[in-house]
């Protein structure tokens, strides 16, 4: 892309993925039984964001990712990638990490990256690939066969192979599953790092705290349909469950019982109120009666609570 073109595009939010009314029906040629993988999915992923795809098992997350990456064919609807380029061109600009990735067991880590590089028509030096392996802590294992790699090592080399063609978009299917806490943190740091370098990331996960930690936007898929999409902050901001008010310097507090639960620890009094609209009135009254406000903390619902509530809607 020329600099002039980059200048022109600055400020425009290009849609890297645009999915409209996507339907996927799994049908066996010998059986009448059909199952619906996707049932009119609509979704958009914008350039430069980390989009998290959430959903229970069988909701259609992997199906959607596999259609985007050319592994499945849609039964209906449309998938537009990078504004409408062809499938081959789109795959040049995309890296995919499948769920529970498996790679050629007969190859070493280094040979695997050399092989995948050649699929992009590239021929990087051993040193260049060593640098990539170093980033994910696999430099010392580069000459070991993949058959001897642990689950965490497979996920890490899996992520590196998605970057081998220097893609604009990473599609990661459950990249954090099966990793220990350290591995998960490293993987999250890597995802953030590549995103900072300008790559768009679409990933599915069922580990909600991780999604909450790294995504700009999330989409919740239920029964093959998008139930909710939005920025994490917006979704959770609108869902304040209660407010914790901490104050001191008041003896008479019975009047606060009507606003919520009261607890007294020494001189400090805690009020947890669900009546968020009356928060200002309560604060004003406490001050008027000589109380000193120590803190006011709105308690938002977690993504997990929001997710479960969306499923039940």
């Amino acid at each position, binding site marked *: 892309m020329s600099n002039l073109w980059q200048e022109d595009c600055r400020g425009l939010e290009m849609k890297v993925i645009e999915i409209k009314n996507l339907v996927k029906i*799994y049908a066996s040629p010998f059986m009448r039984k059909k199952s619906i993988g996707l049932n009119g999915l609509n979704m958009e992923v914008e350039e430069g964001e980390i989009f998290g795809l959430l959903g229970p098992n069988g909701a259609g997350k992997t199906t959607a990712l*596999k259609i985007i*990456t*050319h*592994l*499945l*064919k849609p039964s209906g609807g449309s998938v537009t990638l990078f504004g409408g380029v062809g499938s*081959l*061109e789109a*795959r*040049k600009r*995309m890296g*995919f990490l*499948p769920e529970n*990735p*498996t*790679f*050629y*067991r*007969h*190859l070493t880590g280094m*040979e695997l990256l050399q*092989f*995948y590089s*050649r*699929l*992009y*028509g590239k021929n990087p030096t051993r040193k260049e690939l060593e640098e990539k392996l170093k980033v994910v802590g696999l430099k010392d294992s580069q000459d070991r066969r993949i058959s001897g790699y642990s689950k965490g090592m497979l996920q890490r080399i899996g992520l590196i*192979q998605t970057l081998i*063609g220097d893609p604009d978009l990473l*599609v990661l299917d459950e990249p954090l599953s099966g990793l220990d806490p350290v591995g998960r943190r490293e993987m999250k740091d890597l995802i953030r790092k590549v995103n900072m370098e300008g790559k768009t990331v679409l990933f599915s996960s069922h580990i909600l705290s991780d999604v909450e930690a790294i995504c700009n936007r999330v989409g919740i898929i239920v029964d093959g349909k998008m139930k909710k999409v939005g920025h994490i902050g917006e979704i959770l901001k609108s869902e304040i469950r209660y407010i914790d008010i901490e104050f001191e310097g008041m003896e008479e507090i019975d009047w606060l019982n009507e606003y919520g639960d009261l607890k007294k620890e020494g001189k400090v009094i805690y009020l947890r109120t669900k009546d968020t609209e009356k928060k200002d009135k309560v604060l004003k009254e406490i001050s008027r009666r000589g109380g000193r406000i120590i803190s006011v903390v709105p308690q938002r619902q977690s993504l997990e609570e929001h997710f479960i509530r969306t499923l039940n809607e």
Partner: protein
Amino acid sequence: MSRVFAIASNTFRESIRDKILLSLAVLGFLLIAASKVFVPISIGQQAKVIKDFGVGLIEIFSLLIVVLIGTRILYQEIERKTIYSIISKPVTELDFVLGKFLGLYYLIIVIQLILFSIFILFMKFYLGTIDWFLLNALYFYLFEFLLLDAVAVFLSCFTTPITAGILTLLVFFVGQLSHYLKDLVVVTGVSELSVLVNFLYFALPNFSVFNVKANVVYHLPISVNSYFLAFSYSILYTLILLIISSLLYSLKEYQ
């Protein structure tokens, strides 16, 4: 083409590191050792027996490689899900099928050359001379197994390795006898067979065009037409099979 060659060299490397190839190598060693038993009992016929045995051994080995390894190379990619990281990259179905096909073909050529070299040493050791006319057999084998490789790849597009292996063997043996098929109707007098026989005759590859074993062992002349026919027939049939295979692959989905 770099993608095709990348897939081909990976397939070749995978096959080289495959345990089946190791088993075949052990089998080959045992067969060569067994030939020492046959040679002394055929007094006066040593040269013929050694040549016949050597030429036959290369063919059987190539056939085993196609049936045991060739029919699995595509299936394994799907079964082990390694294909996910191939098809999601800028690789077309034709690249993939062609790469797998060529990878197996590299293996066949290498094995044939190794076996032929061993065979030459064997001749030199037992007969004291090398019959270079036998190189003609190698020429025909190269095209015979190019075609059989394509048959195995084609069959494994829609069957399991075991089924593809059995069918490949059948196609090979029926194809060796296809010029007798038409005679079968005349000899048996069963006219109902003619439809089936005609279908088999035209649809199945005719492997008898590559059969020059008797010519090379007994030093019978081989016509220029035979060389040309083996080359053109093999290339054309192989191309057709590979194009159909890649079309079949483009319909596949990877759940």
